[in-house]
């Protein structure tokens, strides 16, 4: 079907100035196929149902809108106390000097540009493959655009149980930077790893993370999207889970003019478990969108979606979450909650929870709420001598706790909590 004229214009405008990066035959084939997907689907516009609450114009247009650099003041680096393998990207470009030596027992890590040069590479079976699977039933053309054109990012193959996290650090140093990052993680059967991500990355970031979690493997993902006020980010996680595998992904978003985080999770082996969670705090010119699609295609699997947003001064929160239970995915246990805490009357929250179930022996529940600070709880705390502002902060943290509880590591959870406390304190006055 031919694209509508407006969509075609948006797509041609964006693709006009782009050319595919060079590389081996396998990656060129994957990129060409992805480019074809973009051309067939067309880039998103406001008219798309999937973009009803979040305007994709600035994400799809040829140039990134500039974003002033943000001074974090005397903030210490996130995860600073945690022993990890650091891989640094500045405005979307790998920085070898700031990065650790890319070697860690139990896993292989390589830059995508290096993997691309190989004639034969294990990544061939997955690169762009998980993204392509995630294009149905809902089109995600900006992810396909990423597969077609990104030449930065890492491919990681995990063969053992790796305790030291791999930490991807994204720095924003150029007001007009437009970054495209593509990461691929393959966990072999029984393997285990933690992936950390933090930082604003660029004025505009388009990121794809593909994760293959083989039977019995376990993947933990914690990311923070920092305080950079004017940056824009559109991220995608595509994950496929094997039998008895575990997948956990948590995202903390603090400010940013536009953030859309899409998570597309497919449970394809029995007894697998997938948890995706997010805590977002936004103030003023802030739109944060969590768009989640979990597909149950095996028996006895469990999935949880836990999203909490704290909004004030006209900030906007969006949640689009779906649980699809395919025929035969019996004994599915699916749960979804999205909640917004409004700290004033100016903010808004749009929620679209969806369940689509084709199996008859499943337990799925979902809920969505929007509310203000609980006056009874506030009075209780104040009656114990806690000043109003401190009591409000405690209740905000209380509200976010269910999402933060989804982080397995107490060390990381504590660190993110203290960042949230600092954010709340800064917001005063």
């Amino acid at each position, binding site marked *: 079907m031919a694209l509508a004229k407006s969509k075609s214009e948006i797509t041609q405008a964006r693709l006009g100035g782009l050319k595919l990066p060079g590389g081996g035959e396998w990656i060129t084939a994957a990129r060409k196929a992805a480019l074809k997907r973009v051309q067939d689907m067309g880039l998103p516009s406001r008219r798309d149902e999937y973009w009803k609450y979040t305007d994709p114009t600035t994400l799809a247009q040829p140039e990134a809108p500039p974003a002033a650099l943000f001074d974090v003041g005397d903030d210490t680096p996130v995860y600073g106390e945690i022993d990890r393998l650091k891989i640094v990207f500045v405005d979307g470009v790998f920085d070898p000097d700031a990065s650790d030596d890319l070697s860690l027992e139990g896993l292989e890590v390589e830059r995508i540009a290096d993997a691309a040069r190989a004639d034969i590479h294990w990544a061939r079976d997955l690169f762009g493959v998980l993204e392509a699977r995630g294009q149905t039933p809902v089109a995600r053309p900006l992810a396909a655009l990423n597969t077609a054109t990104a030449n930065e990012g890492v491919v990681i193959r995990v063969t053992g149980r790796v305790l030291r996290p791999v930490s991807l650090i994204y720095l924003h140093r150029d007001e007009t930077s437009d970054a495209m990052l593509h990461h691929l993680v393959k966990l072999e059967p029984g393997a285990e790893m933690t992936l950390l991500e933090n930082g604003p990355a660029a004025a505009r970031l388009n990121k794809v993370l593909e994760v293959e979690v083989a039977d019995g493997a376990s993947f933990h993902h914690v990311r923070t999207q920092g305080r950079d006020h004017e940056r824009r980010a559109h991220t995608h996680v595509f994950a496929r889970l094997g039998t008895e595998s575990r997948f956990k992904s948590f995202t903390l978003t603090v400010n940013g003019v536009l953030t859309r985080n899409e998570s597309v999770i497919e449970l394809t082996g029995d007894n697998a478990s997938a948890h995706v969670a997010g805590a977002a705090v936004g103030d003023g010119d802030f739109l944060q969108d969590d768009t989640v699609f979990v597909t149950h295609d095996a028996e006895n699997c469990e999935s949880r979606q836990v999203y909490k947003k704290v909004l004030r001064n006209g900030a906007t929160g969006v949640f689009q979450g779906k649980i699809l239970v395919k025929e035969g995915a019996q004994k599915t246990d699916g749960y979804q909650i999205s909640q917004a805490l409004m700290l004033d009357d100016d903010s808004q929250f749009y929620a679209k929870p969806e369940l689509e179930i084709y199996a008859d022996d499943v337990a799925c529940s979902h809920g969505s709420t929007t509310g203000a600070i609980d006056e009874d709880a506030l009075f209780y705390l104040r*009656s114990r*001598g806690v000043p*109003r502002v401190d009591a409000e902060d405690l209740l905000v943290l209380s509200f976010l*706790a269910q999402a933060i509880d989804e982080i397995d590591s107490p060390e990381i959870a504590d660190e993110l909590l203290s960042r949230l406390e600092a954010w709340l304190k800064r917001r005063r006055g």
Partner: protein
Amino acid sequence: MLDIKDLHVKLEDEDKQILKGVDLSVGAGEVHAIMGPNGSGKSTLSYVLAGKEGYEVTQGSATLDGVDLLDMDPEERAAAGLFLAFQYPVEIPGVGNMTFLRTAVNSVRKARGEAELSAGEFLKEIRARAKALKIDAEMLKRPVNVGFSGGEKKRNEILQMAMLEPKMCVLDETDSGLDVDAMKLVAEGVNALRSPDRAFLVITHYQRLLDHIKPDVVHIMADGRIIKTGGPELALEVENNGYAALLQEVA
């Protein structure tokens, strides 16, 4: 210590008068009980003293050691030495009981011009207080009141009271939802805090709590006023004859 004079209170959003001229004076070291039927205004009195929103004082005053309570924010009243043990303590998921207590204690200390307790000092203090109330370490770690039984919630209220060292303690239906053993434990906690410079106002429906927390003075409240004041024998009279007989007698 606590002086309430001709206190008139209505609901802020409704034209409904709840307290219609309450007069009450509690001296240092004394324990007063307020009894009365449902809807007599007992809980409203406790909320108005603690500073809950939604009520409008239309007349009268309430002072603590001569300081006007009604003009203060709830946190200022706590710092001034007022403590309300809630009938229904509020659950606060995601906030550890210990974190909450430490924030409360240090807020109050700061407001009173005292040095904040270090983590070590606080821990020492809370362990001793908690032990007396049979509150274990696990209960201190749990989120505030979440998943607590009725008895645990009330013991937690008394623990907060002990930690904040108030002058004037108001206990709103502290016996509700408690079995006999739990009530004894709570009463022991309260009795341990009795001192010459601390006063208690115990609000209750039933006389049985007063077997364990012995009052000096008993007030009967009905329709927004204190209609009768007497000694502990007044509570027994209520227990034996009910409120109806008493109301009739006063009318």
